[in-house]
Protein backbone atom coordinates (compact mmCIF):
# COMPACT_ATOMS: atom_id res chain seq x y z
CA UNK A 1 0.00 0.00 0.00
CA UNK A 2 1.08 3.46 -0.78
CA UNK A 3 1.38 5.70 2.19
CA UNK A 4 -1.88 7.62 2.29
CA UNK A 5 -0.09 10.74 3.41
CA UNK A 6 2.19 10.86 0.38
CA UNK A 7 0.53 12.60 -2.52
CA UNK A 8 0.75 10.77 -5.86
CA UNK A 9 0.33 14.00 -7.74
CA UNK A 10 1.02 17.42 -6.34
CA UNK A 11 1.33 21.03 -7.42
CA UNK A 12 3.33 23.38 -5.26
CA UNK A 13 2.69 27.13 -5.46
CA UNK A 14 1.98 27.20 -9.18
CA UNK A 15 1.69 30.64 -10.74
CA UNK A 16 0.85 31.36 -14.34
CA UNK A 17 -0.07 34.65 -15.97
CA UNK A 18 -1.09 35.59 -19.48
CA UNK A 19 -0.19 39.26 -19.66
CA UNK A 20 -2.38 40.88 -17.02
CA UNK A 21 -4.55 37.81 -16.51
CA UNK A 22 -3.49 35.76 -13.52
CA UNK A 23 -4.72 32.32 -14.52
CA UNK A 24 -3.07 30.45 -11.67
CA UNK A 25 -2.22 32.18 -8.42
CA UNK A 26 -0.10 30.22 -6.01
CA UNK A 27 -1.95 26.98 -6.48
CA UNK A 28 -1.04 24.05 -4.27
CA UNK A 29 -3.14 20.95 -4.41
CA UNK A 30 -2.51 17.27 -4.10
CA UNK A 31 -3.97 13.94 -5.07
CA UNK A 32 -3.61 11.07 -2.63
CA UNK A 33 -3.82 7.34 -3.16
CA UNK A 34 -7.33 5.97 -3.50
CA UNK A 35 -9.15 9.28 -3.75
CA UNK A 36 -11.12 11.24 -6.25
CA UNK A 37 -10.30 14.90 -6.01
CA UNK A 38 -12.67 17.15 -7.92
CA UNK A 39 -11.68 20.58 -9.14
CA UNK A 40 -14.65 22.86 -9.61
CA UNK A 41 -15.05 26.50 -10.45
CA UNK A 42 -16.94 28.85 -12.75
CA UNK A 43 -16.00 29.26 -16.40
CA UNK A 44 -12.78 31.18 -16.82
CA UNK A 45 -11.56 30.29 -13.35
CA UNK A 46 -8.39 28.76 -14.78
CA UNK A 47 -9.21 25.07 -14.51
CA UNK A 48 -8.01 24.16 -18.00
CA UNK A 49 -4.87 26.20 -17.54
CA UNK A 50 -4.15 24.34 -14.34
CA UNK A 51 -4.79 20.94 -15.92
CA UNK A 52 -2.51 21.83 -18.83
CA UNK A 53 0.27 22.68 -16.39
CA UNK A 54 -0.21 19.41 -14.57
CA UNK A 55 -0.38 17.29 -17.73
CA UNK A 56 2.47 19.09 -19.45
CA UNK A 57 1.06 21.29 -22.20
CA UNK A 58 1.89 24.51 -20.35
CA UNK A 59 4.83 25.49 -18.20
CA UNK A 60 4.11 27.39 -14.99
CA UNK A 61 5.84 30.75 -14.44
CA UNK A 62 6.84 29.53 -11.01
CA UNK A 63 6.09 26.65 -8.69
CA UNK A 64 6.41 22.96 -9.41
CA UNK A 65 4.52 19.80 -10.29
CA UNK A 66 5.39 16.48 -8.68
CA UNK A 67 4.42 12.99 -9.75
CA UNK A 68 5.19 10.22 -7.28
CA UNK A 69 7.61 12.51 -5.53
CA UNK A 70 9.45 13.36 -8.70
CA UNK A 71 9.63 16.92 -9.99
CA UNK A 72 8.14 16.81 -13.48
CA UNK A 73 7.70 20.57 -13.96
CA UNK A 74 10.03 20.77 -16.94
CA UNK A 75 9.19 17.41 -18.50
CA UNK A 76 7.19 17.24 -21.73
CA UNK A 77 3.72 15.66 -21.86
CA UNK A 78 4.99 12.40 -23.35
CA UNK A 79 7.52 11.92 -20.57
CA UNK A 80 4.93 12.58 -17.86
CA UNK A 81 2.68 10.02 -19.48
CA UNK A 82 5.48 7.46 -19.37
CA UNK A 83 5.93 8.23 -15.69
CA UNK A 84 2.33 7.33 -15.02
CA UNK A 85 0.05 10.27 -15.73
CA UNK A 86 -3.09 9.09 -17.48
CA UNK A 87 -5.10 11.87 -19.03
CA UNK A 88 -8.48 12.17 -20.69
CA UNK A 89 -9.68 15.19 -22.63
CA UNK A 90 -12.78 17.32 -22.46
CA UNK A 91 -13.17 17.11 -26.21
CA UNK A 92 -12.29 13.56 -27.19
CA UNK A 93 -8.81 13.41 -28.67
CA UNK A 94 -8.98 10.05 -30.38
CA UNK A 95 -7.92 8.81 -33.79
CA UNK A 96 -11.39 9.08 -35.30
CA UNK A 97 -10.65 7.23 -38.54
CA UNK A 98 -9.23 4.25 -36.67
CA UNK A 99 -11.15 1.50 -34.96
CA UNK A 100 -11.79 1.36 -31.25
CA UNK A 101 -9.29 -1.46 -30.94
CA UNK A 102 -6.64 0.49 -32.83
CA UNK A 103 -7.03 3.38 -30.41
CA UNK A 104 -6.62 1.05 -27.47
CA UNK A 105 -3.63 -0.68 -29.06
CA UNK A 106 -2.11 2.75 -29.55
CA UNK A 107 -2.31 3.25 -25.81
CA UNK A 108 -0.72 -0.13 -25.18
CA UNK A 109 1.98 0.82 -27.63
CA UNK A 110 2.70 3.98 -25.69
CA UNK A 111 2.88 1.98 -22.48
CA UNK A 112 5.34 -0.39 -24.08
CA UNK A 113 7.35 2.58 -25.27
CA UNK A 114 8.72 1.05 -28.44
CA UNK A 115 6.84 2.54 -31.37
CA UNK A 116 9.59 2.10 -33.95
CA UNK A 117 8.75 -1.38 -35.12
CA UNK A 118 8.34 -1.09 -38.86
CA UNK A 119 7.67 -4.64 -39.91
CA UNK A 120 5.54 -6.46 -37.37
CA UNK A 121 1.80 -5.98 -37.32
CA UNK A 122 0.46 -3.78 -34.53
CA UNK A 123 -2.83 -5.61 -34.20
CA UNK A 124 -1.12 -8.98 -34.63
CA UNK A 125 1.06 -8.39 -31.60
CA UNK A 126 -0.38 -10.57 -28.83
CA UNK A 127 0.88 -8.56 -25.87
CA UNK A 128 -0.28 -5.21 -27.27
CA UNK A 129 -3.61 -6.69 -28.15
CA UNK A 130 -4.11 -8.27 -24.75
CA UNK A 131 -3.52 -5.01 -22.92
CA UNK A 132 -5.86 -3.22 -25.32
CA UNK A 133 -8.63 -5.78 -25.10
CA UNK A 134 -8.48 -5.89 -21.32
CA UNK A 135 -8.87 -2.13 -21.17
CA UNK A 136 -11.81 -2.21 -23.58
CA UNK A 137 -13.46 -4.90 -21.53
CA UNK A 138 -12.93 -2.91 -18.37
CA UNK A 139 -14.91 0.02 -19.77
CA UNK A 140 -17.42 -2.23 -21.53
CA UNK A 141 -16.48 -1.52 -25.12
CA UNK A 142 -15.33 -5.03 -26.02
CA UNK A 143 -18.21 -5.51 -28.45
CA UNK A 144 -17.25 -2.38 -30.34
CA UNK A 145 -13.60 -3.26 -30.90
CA UNK A 146 -13.96 -3.15 -34.67
CA UNK A 147 -16.17 -0.10 -34.83
CA UNK A 148 -14.70 3.01 -36.36
CA UNK A 149 -14.23 5.53 -33.56
CA UNK A 150 -16.07 8.25 -35.46
CA UNK A 151 -19.17 6.05 -35.34
CA UNK A 152 -19.19 5.78 -31.54
CA UNK A 153 -21.71 7.73 -29.51
CA UNK A 154 -20.49 10.57 -27.39
CA UNK A 155 -20.67 8.48 -24.25
CA UNK A 156 -18.78 5.61 -25.84
CA UNK A 157 -16.01 7.98 -26.86
CA UNK A 158 -15.73 9.01 -23.22
CA UNK A 159 -15.41 5.34 -22.30
CA UNK A 160 -12.74 4.87 -24.95
CA UNK A 161 -10.85 7.90 -23.64
CA UNK A 162 -10.74 6.19 -20.25
CA UNK A 163 -9.80 2.83 -21.82
CA UNK A 164 -6.84 4.37 -23.63
CA UNK A 165 -5.71 5.98 -20.39
CA UNK A 166 -6.12 2.59 -18.66
CA UNK A 167 -3.76 0.83 -21.07
CA UNK A 168 -0.96 2.96 -19.64
CA UNK A 169 -1.64 1.59 -16.15
CA UNK A 170 -1.26 5.09 -14.80
CA UNK A 171 -0.33 6.01 -11.26
CA UNK A 172 -2.77 8.92 -11.41
CA UNK A 173 -5.59 9.99 -13.69
CA UNK A 174 -6.24 13.55 -14.74
CA UNK A 175 -9.67 13.90 -16.30
CA UNK A 176 -10.97 17.03 -17.93
CA UNK A 177 -14.77 17.06 -17.62
CA UNK A 178 -15.38 13.34 -18.13
CA UNK A 179 -19.16 13.87 -17.81
CA UNK A 180 -19.40 16.69 -20.36
CA UNK A 181 -22.14 16.11 -22.88
CA UNK A 182 -23.33 12.86 -21.37
CA UNK A 183 -27.03 12.30 -20.80
CA UNK A 184 -28.37 11.42 -17.38
CA UNK A 185 -28.02 7.66 -17.86
CA UNK A 186 -24.55 7.93 -19.42
CA UNK A 187 -23.43 10.18 -16.64
CA UNK A 188 -24.73 7.73 -14.06
CA UNK A 189 -22.98 4.78 -15.69
CA UNK A 190 -19.68 6.63 -15.89
CA UNK A 191 -20.05 7.74 -12.28
CA UNK A 192 -20.31 4.10 -11.24
CA UNK A 193 -17.28 3.21 -13.29
CA UNK A 194 -15.08 6.03 -12.03
CA UNK A 195 -16.09 5.09 -8.50
CA UNK A 196 -14.57 1.66 -9.04
CA UNK A 197 -11.51 3.10 -10.77
CA UNK A 198 -10.19 5.03 -7.79
CA UNK A 199 -8.88 1.83 -6.23
CA UNK A 200 -6.57 1.40 -9.20
CA UNK A 201 -5.30 4.96 -9.33
CA UNK A 202 -6.51 8.23 -7.82
CA UNK A 203 -8.36 10.66 -10.06
CA UNK A 204 -8.02 14.40 -10.30
CA UNK A 205 -11.02 15.59 -12.24
CA UNK A 206 -12.38 18.87 -13.47
CA UNK A 207 -16.14 18.58 -13.54
CA UNK A 208 -19.20 20.78 -13.96
CA UNK A 209 -21.75 18.07 -13.25
CA UNK A 210 -22.30 18.73 -9.56
CA UNK A 211 -24.34 15.56 -9.01
CA UNK A 212 -21.37 13.52 -10.18
CA UNK A 213 -18.96 15.58 -8.13
CA UNK A 214 -20.99 15.21 -4.95
CA UNK A 215 -21.44 11.50 -5.58
CA UNK A 216 -17.80 10.76 -6.33
CA UNK A 217 -15.43 13.22 -4.77
CA UNK A 218 -13.54 12.50 -1.58
CA UNK A 219 -12.31 16.05 -1.67
CA UNK A 220 -13.27 19.10 -3.64
CA UNK A 221 -11.15 22.12 -4.46
CA UNK A 222 -12.81 25.31 -5.61
CA UNK A 223 -10.98 27.50 -8.09
CA UNK A 224 -12.11 31.07 -8.57
CA UNK A 225 -10.17 33.71 -10.54
CA UNK A 226 -7.07 31.56 -10.54
CA UNK A 227 -7.13 30.97 -6.80
CA UNK A 228 -8.11 27.97 -4.74
CA UNK A 229 -10.59 29.44 -2.30
CA UNK A 230 -11.37 26.21 -0.50
CA UNK A 231 -10.46 22.55 -0.32
CA UNK A 232 -12.43 20.03 1.68
CA UNK A 233 -14.91 17.19 1.84
CA UNK A 234 -18.25 17.37 0.07
CA UNK A 235 -19.98 18.47 3.25
CA UNK A 236 -17.39 21.12 4.03
CA UNK A 237 -17.55 22.57 0.52
CA UNK A 238 -21.34 22.58 0.51
CA UNK A 239 -21.32 24.49 3.76
CA UNK A 240 -18.52 26.85 2.84
CA UNK A 241 -20.01 30.37 2.71
CA UNK A 242 -17.44 31.81 0.33
CA UNK A 243 -17.96 28.94 -2.08
CA UNK A 244 -21.69 29.38 -2.01
CA UNK A 245 -21.30 33.05 -2.76
CA UNK A 246 -18.63 32.80 -5.43
CA UNK A 247 -19.58 29.62 -7.17
CA UNK A 248 -23.00 28.33 -6.32
CA UNK A 249 -24.28 31.83 -6.77
CA UNK A 250 -26.24 31.96 -3.55
CA UNK A 251 -26.35 34.43 -0.80
CA UNK A 252 -24.57 33.11 2.20
Amino acid at each position, binding site marked *: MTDLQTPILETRNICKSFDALKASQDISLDLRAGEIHALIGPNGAGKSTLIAQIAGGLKPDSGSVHLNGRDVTTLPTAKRARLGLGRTFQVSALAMEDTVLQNAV*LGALGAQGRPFHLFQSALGNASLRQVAEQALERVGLQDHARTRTAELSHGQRRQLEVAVALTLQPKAFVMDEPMAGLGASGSKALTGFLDSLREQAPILMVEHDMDAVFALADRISVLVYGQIIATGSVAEIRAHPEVRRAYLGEDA
Partner: protein
Amino acid sequence: MTRETLINSALALALLLVPLLAYAMDEPFIITLATKVAILALAGVGLNIALGLGGLVSLGHAAFFGIGGYAMGILASHAQSYTAITDWPVLIEGTKSMPVIWLVAVVASGITALLIGALSLRTSGVYFIMITLAFGQMLYYFAISWAAYGGEDGLSIYVRNSFPGLNTLDPIQFFAITFVLLLAALLFSARLARSPFGLALNAARQSPQRVETIGLSPYRLRLLAFVISGMITGLAGALFADLNRFVSPTMFSWQTSGEIMVFIILGGTARLFGPVAGAALFIILEHILGGLSEFWHIYLGLLLLLVVLFAKGGVIGTLAGREKAHD
Protein backbone atom coordinates in the same frame (compact mmCIF):
# COMPACT_ATOMS: atom_id res chain seq x y z
CA MET B 1 -10.29 -10.18 -50.53
CA THR B 2 -11.54 -6.63 -50.28
CA ARG B 3 -12.49 -4.60 -53.28
CA GLU B 4 -9.48 -2.38 -52.84
CA THR B 5 -7.12 -5.38 -52.86
CA LEU B 6 -8.72 -6.53 -56.11
CA ILE B 7 -8.32 -3.12 -57.70
CA ASN B 8 -4.73 -2.92 -56.50
CA SER B 9 -3.92 -6.33 -57.95
CA ALA B 10 -5.54 -5.36 -61.24
CA LEU B 11 -3.49 -2.18 -61.37
CA ALA B 12 -0.25 -4.02 -60.67
CA LEU B 13 -1.11 -6.61 -63.29
CA ALA B 14 -1.96 -3.96 -65.88
CA LEU B 15 1.31 -2.18 -65.23
CA LEU B 16 3.06 -5.48 -65.87
CA LEU B 17 1.01 -6.59 -68.87
CA VAL B 18 1.08 -3.36 -70.86
CA PRO B 19 4.85 -3.34 -71.35
CA LEU B 20 4.86 -7.11 -71.97
CA LEU B 21 2.30 -6.64 -74.74
CA ALA B 22 4.25 -3.68 -76.06
CA TYR B 23 7.32 -5.89 -76.06
CA ALA B 24 5.51 -8.55 -78.06
CA MET B 25 4.33 -5.93 -80.54
CA ASP B 26 7.75 -4.28 -80.66
CA GLU B 27 6.65 -0.92 -79.27
CA PRO B 28 9.59 0.18 -77.11
CA PHE B 29 8.12 3.64 -76.57
CA ILE B 30 5.17 2.19 -74.66
CA ILE B 31 7.60 0.22 -72.50
CA THR B 32 9.43 3.44 -71.71
CA LEU B 33 6.15 5.10 -70.75
CA ALA B 34 5.33 2.19 -68.43
CA THR B 35 8.81 2.47 -66.92
CA LYS B 36 8.18 6.15 -66.31
CA VAL B 37 4.91 5.27 -64.57
CA ALA B 38 6.69 2.73 -62.34
CA ILE B 39 9.40 5.22 -61.39
CA LEU B 40 7.04 8.12 -60.70
CA ALA B 41 4.79 5.77 -58.74
CA LEU B 42 7.83 4.80 -56.66
CA ALA B 43 8.52 8.48 -55.96
CA GLY B 44 4.85 8.81 -55.03
CA VAL B 45 4.94 5.80 -52.70
CA GLY B 46 7.76 7.63 -50.92
CA LEU B 47 5.90 10.93 -50.64
CA ASN B 48 2.67 9.15 -49.68
CA ILE B 49 4.28 7.83 -46.48
CA ALA B 50 4.83 11.42 -45.36
CA LEU B 51 1.72 12.90 -46.95
CA GLY B 52 -0.87 10.16 -46.58
CA LEU B 53 0.17 8.35 -43.44
CA GLY B 54 1.89 11.22 -41.65
CA GLY B 55 -0.22 14.12 -42.92
CA LEU B 56 2.96 16.02 -43.76
CA VAL B 57 2.37 18.24 -46.78
CA SER B 58 5.92 18.39 -48.06
CA LEU B 59 6.36 20.64 -51.06
CA GLY B 60 10.06 19.87 -51.08
CA HIS B 61 10.23 16.23 -52.02
CA ALA B 62 11.90 17.20 -55.29
CA ALA B 63 14.96 17.68 -53.08
CA PHE B 64 15.19 13.92 -52.56
CA PHE B 65 14.20 13.14 -56.14
CA GLY B 66 16.98 15.45 -57.30
CA ILE B 67 19.53 14.10 -54.85
CA GLY B 68 18.84 10.60 -56.15
CA GLY B 69 19.21 11.91 -59.68
CA TYR B 70 22.45 13.70 -58.97
CA ALA B 71 23.82 10.72 -57.04
CA MET B 72 23.40 8.77 -60.25
CA GLY B 73 24.67 11.62 -62.46
CA ILE B 74 27.78 12.33 -60.43
CA LEU B 75 28.80 8.70 -59.95
CA ALA B 76 28.14 7.76 -63.57
CA SER B 77 29.72 10.86 -65.10
CA HIS B 78 32.96 10.19 -63.25
CA ALA B 79 32.87 6.59 -64.31
CA GLN B 80 32.36 7.53 -67.96
CA SER B 81 35.16 10.09 -67.93
CA TYR B 82 37.49 7.87 -65.87
CA THR B 83 38.07 10.59 -63.32
CA ALA B 84 37.96 10.21 -59.56
CA ILE B 85 35.32 12.11 -57.60
CA THR B 86 37.95 12.90 -55.02
CA ASP B 87 41.37 11.51 -54.14
CA TRP B 88 41.66 12.96 -50.69
CA PRO B 89 41.47 11.75 -47.93
CA VAL B 90 40.53 8.54 -49.69
CA LEU B 91 40.17 7.85 -53.35
CA ILE B 92 36.49 7.77 -54.36
CA GLU B 93 35.73 6.79 -57.90
CA GLY B 94 32.58 6.86 -59.96
CA THR B 95 30.59 3.77 -60.72
CA LYS B 96 28.18 2.48 -63.32
CA SER B 97 26.72 -0.16 -61.02
CA MET B 98 23.05 0.45 -60.30
CA PRO B 99 22.96 -1.20 -56.85
CA VAL B 100 25.84 0.99 -55.65
CA ILE B 101 24.21 4.08 -57.14
CA TRP B 102 20.92 3.22 -55.45
CA LEU B 103 22.63 2.77 -52.13
CA VAL B 104 24.33 6.15 -52.42
CA ALA B 105 21.08 7.76 -53.56
CA VAL B 106 19.11 6.29 -50.66
CA VAL B 107 21.71 7.15 -48.00
CA ALA B 108 22.24 10.69 -49.32
CA SER B 109 18.52 11.44 -49.49
CA GLY B 110 18.00 9.86 -46.07
CA ILE B 111 20.62 12.10 -44.48
CA THR B 112 19.22 15.16 -46.24
CA ALA B 113 15.69 14.24 -45.16
CA LEU B 114 16.92 13.92 -41.59
CA LEU B 115 18.38 17.43 -41.68
CA ILE B 116 15.45 19.04 -43.50
CA GLY B 117 12.93 17.13 -41.41
CA ALA B 118 14.60 17.91 -38.09
CA LEU B 119 14.24 21.63 -38.82
CA SER B 120 10.97 21.80 -40.72
CA LEU B 121 9.00 19.42 -38.48
CA ARG B 122 9.32 21.94 -35.67
CA THR B 123 6.67 23.85 -37.56
CA SER B 124 3.36 22.70 -38.94
CA GLY B 125 0.67 23.65 -41.42
CA VAL B 126 1.51 26.29 -43.95
CA TYR B 127 4.90 26.98 -42.33
CA PHE B 128 5.92 23.38 -42.88
CA ILE B 129 4.90 23.60 -46.53
CA MET B 130 6.89 26.79 -46.97
CA ILE B 131 10.01 25.52 -45.22
CA THR B 132 10.13 22.28 -47.20
CA LEU B 133 9.59 24.33 -50.34
CA ALA B 134 12.44 26.64 -49.34
CA PHE B 135 14.84 23.74 -48.82
CA GLY B 136 13.88 22.30 -52.19
CA GLN B 137 14.51 25.63 -53.88
CA MET B 138 17.87 26.00 -52.13
CA LEU B 139 19.00 22.73 -53.65
CA TYR B 140 17.53 23.73 -57.02
CA TYR B 141 19.60 26.91 -57.18
CA PHE B 142 22.61 25.11 -55.83
CA ALA B 143 22.35 22.57 -58.69
CA ILE B 144 22.01 25.40 -61.23
CA SER B 145 25.20 27.02 -59.99
CA TRP B 146 27.15 23.79 -59.65
CA ALA B 147 29.26 24.17 -62.80
CA ALA B 148 31.33 21.06 -62.16
CA TYR B 149 28.23 18.98 -62.79
CA GLY B 150 26.72 20.80 -65.72
CA GLY B 151 25.11 23.72 -63.91
CA GLU B 152 21.92 24.74 -65.62
CA ASP B 153 22.47 22.35 -68.52
CA GLY B 154 22.64 19.25 -66.37
CA LEU B 155 24.59 16.10 -67.03
CA SER B 156 24.24 13.60 -69.83
CA ILE B 157 25.14 9.98 -69.25
CA TYR B 158 25.81 8.19 -72.52
CA VAL B 159 25.20 4.59 -71.55
CA ARG B 160 22.66 3.41 -69.01
CA ASN B 161 24.14 2.04 -65.80
CA SER B 162 24.56 -1.66 -65.33
CA PHE B 163 22.84 -4.26 -63.22
CA PRO B 164 24.48 -7.68 -62.73
CA GLY B 165 23.02 -10.27 -65.06
CA LEU B 166 20.75 -7.88 -66.97
CA ASN B 167 21.03 -5.82 -70.12
CA THR B 168 19.68 -2.52 -68.83
CA LEU B 169 19.66 -0.95 -72.30
CA ASP B 170 16.90 -3.33 -73.25
CA PRO B 171 13.75 -1.36 -72.32
CA ILE B 172 11.84 -4.38 -71.04
CA GLN B 173 14.70 -5.43 -68.76
CA PHE B 174 15.06 -1.96 -67.35
CA PHE B 175 11.30 -1.89 -66.85
CA ALA B 176 11.53 -5.16 -64.91
CA ILE B 177 14.02 -3.58 -62.51
CA THR B 178 11.80 -0.58 -61.83
CA PHE B 179 8.71 -2.75 -61.51
CA VAL B 180 10.31 -5.05 -58.94
CA LEU B 181 11.55 -2.06 -56.93
CA LEU B 182 8.08 -0.51 -57.04
CA LEU B 183 6.50 -3.74 -55.80
CA ALA B 184 9.05 -3.98 -53.00
CA ALA B 185 8.31 -0.40 -51.96
CA LEU B 186 4.57 -1.06 -52.04
CA LEU B 187 4.98 -4.15 -49.91
CA PHE B 188 7.11 -2.22 -47.46
CA SER B 189 4.62 0.63 -47.38
CA ALA B 190 1.70 -1.76 -46.75
CA ARG B 191 3.51 -3.38 -43.84
CA LEU B 192 4.57 -0.02 -42.49
CA ALA B 193 0.97 1.19 -42.40
CA ARG B 194 -0.04 -1.76 -40.22
CA SER B 195 3.00 -1.74 -37.98
CA PRO B 196 3.08 -0.16 -34.53
CA PHE B 197 4.98 2.71 -36.09
CA GLY B 198 2.33 3.16 -38.77
CA LEU B 199 -0.44 3.07 -36.19
CA ALA B 200 1.26 5.71 -34.06
CA LEU B 201 2.14 7.89 -37.05
CA ASN B 202 -1.40 7.72 -38.34
CA ALA B 203 -2.71 8.64 -34.89
CA ALA B 204 -0.26 11.53 -34.69
CA ARG B 205 -1.81 12.87 -37.89
CA GLN B 206 -5.34 12.62 -36.49
CA SER B 207 -4.69 13.62 -32.91
CA PRO B 208 -1.15 14.62 -31.93
CA GLN B 209 -2.44 15.43 -28.42
CA ARG B 210 -3.47 11.81 -27.95
CA VAL B 211 -0.10 10.48 -29.06
CA GLU B 212 1.63 12.74 -26.54
CA THR B 213 -0.63 11.69 -23.69
CA ILE B 214 0.20 8.05 -24.26
CA GLY B 215 3.88 8.88 -23.95
CA LEU B 216 5.05 9.09 -27.56
CA SER B 217 6.60 12.02 -29.36
CA PRO B 218 4.79 13.01 -32.57
CA TYR B 219 7.94 14.83 -33.67
CA ARG B 220 10.07 11.68 -33.64
CA LEU B 221 7.43 9.63 -35.38
CA ARG B 222 7.12 12.25 -38.11
CA LEU B 223 10.85 12.61 -38.46
CA LEU B 224 11.32 8.90 -39.08
CA ALA B 225 8.43 8.94 -41.56
CA PHE B 226 9.97 11.90 -43.35
CA VAL B 227 13.35 10.15 -43.61
CA ILE B 228 11.86 6.88 -44.92
CA SER B 229 9.75 8.89 -47.33
CA GLY B 230 12.75 10.84 -48.60
CA MET B 231 14.81 7.69 -49.06
CA ILE B 232 12.23 6.05 -51.30
CA THR B 233 11.74 9.20 -53.34
CA GLY B 234 15.54 9.45 -53.63
CA LEU B 235 15.72 5.94 -55.04
CA ALA B 236 13.08 6.89 -57.59
CA GLY B 237 15.18 9.92 -58.53
CA ALA B 238 18.19 7.73 -59.31
CA LEU B 239 16.04 5.49 -61.52
CA PHE B 240 14.42 8.46 -63.24
CA ALA B 241 17.83 9.85 -64.12
CA ASP B 242 18.85 6.44 -65.41
CA LEU B 243 15.71 6.22 -67.54
CA ASN B 244 16.49 9.54 -69.22
CA ARG B 245 20.26 9.11 -69.00
CA PHE B 246 20.15 12.75 -68.09
CA VAL B 247 20.10 14.79 -64.88
CA SER B 248 19.27 18.46 -64.63
CA PRO B 249 18.27 20.95 -61.93
CA THR B 250 14.66 20.52 -63.09
CA MET B 251 14.54 17.40 -60.95
CA PHE B 252 14.96 19.72 -57.93
CA SER B 253 12.34 22.23 -59.04
CA TRP B 254 9.20 22.84 -57.04
CA GLN B 255 7.17 21.86 -60.10
CA THR B 256 8.54 18.35 -59.63
CA SER B 257 7.41 18.32 -55.98
CA GLY B 258 4.05 19.64 -57.10
CA GLU B 259 3.61 17.06 -59.83
CA ILE B 260 4.30 14.17 -57.47
CA MET B 261 1.79 15.57 -55.00
CA VAL B 262 -0.78 16.23 -57.74
CA PHE B 263 -0.72 12.70 -59.04
CA ILE B 264 -0.92 11.24 -55.54
CA ILE B 265 -4.05 13.32 -54.94
CA LEU B 266 -5.43 12.18 -58.30
CA GLY B 267 -4.74 8.55 -57.45
CA GLY B 268 -5.84 8.70 -53.82
CA THR B 269 -3.95 10.15 -50.85
CA ALA B 270 -3.08 7.64 -48.12
CA ARG B 271 -4.21 4.76 -50.32
CA LEU B 272 -1.56 2.13 -50.94
CA PHE B 273 -1.97 2.14 -54.72
CA GLY B 274 -2.91 5.83 -54.96
CA PRO B 275 0.52 6.77 -56.31
CA VAL B 276 0.39 3.95 -58.89
CA ALA B 277 -3.05 4.91 -60.17
CA GLY B 278 -2.09 8.58 -60.10
CA ALA B 279 1.23 8.16 -61.90
CA ALA B 280 -0.41 6.03 -64.59
CA LEU B 281 -3.18 8.59 -65.08
CA PHE B 282 -0.66 11.40 -65.14
CA ILE B 283 1.50 9.78 -67.82
CA ILE B 284 -1.51 8.75 -69.91
CA LEU B 285 -2.92 12.28 -69.75
CA GLU B 286 0.45 13.80 -70.53
CA HIS B 287 0.73 11.51 -73.52
CA ILE B 288 -2.79 11.92 -74.91
CA LEU B 289 -3.55 15.53 -73.98
CA GLY B 290 0.06 16.53 -74.57
CA GLY B 291 -0.41 15.40 -78.17
CA LEU B 292 -3.52 17.53 -78.55
CA SER B 293 -2.31 20.70 -76.96
CA GLU B 294 0.82 22.20 -75.55
CA PHE B 295 -1.27 23.51 -72.70
CA TRP B 296 -2.46 20.14 -71.46
CA HIS B 297 -1.80 21.17 -67.88
CA ILE B 298 -4.99 23.24 -68.05
CA TYR B 299 -6.97 20.01 -68.40
CA LEU B 300 -4.90 18.37 -65.69
CA GLY B 301 -5.68 21.29 -63.42
CA LEU B 302 -9.37 20.97 -64.18
CA LEU B 303 -9.27 17.28 -63.38
CA LEU B 304 -7.43 17.94 -60.12
CA LEU B 305 -10.06 20.50 -59.21
CA LEU B 306 -12.83 18.00 -59.85
CA VAL B 307 -11.09 15.30 -57.81
CA VAL B 308 -10.45 17.61 -54.87
CA LEU B 309 -14.03 18.89 -54.92
CA PHE B 310 -15.99 15.75 -55.69
CA ALA B 311 -13.82 12.65 -55.31
CA LYS B 312 -11.55 13.17 -52.33
CA GLY B 313 -10.35 9.57 -52.36
CA GLY B 314 -9.02 10.01 -55.90
CA VAL B 315 -9.13 7.17 -58.40
CA ILE B 316 -8.73 4.45 -55.78
CA GLY B 317 -11.25 6.04 -53.45
CA THR B 318 -13.81 6.34 -56.23
CA LEU B 319 -13.37 2.75 -57.34
CA ALA B 320 -12.92 1.05 -53.98
CA GLY B 321 -14.99 3.23 -51.68
CA ARG B 322 -13.87 4.37 -48.28
CA GLU B 323 -10.88 2.64 -46.80
CA LYS B 324 -11.82 -0.35 -44.72
CA ALA B 325 -10.73 -0.30 -41.15
CA HIS B 326 -8.11 -2.92 -40.45
CA ASP B 327 -9.00 -5.87 -38.26
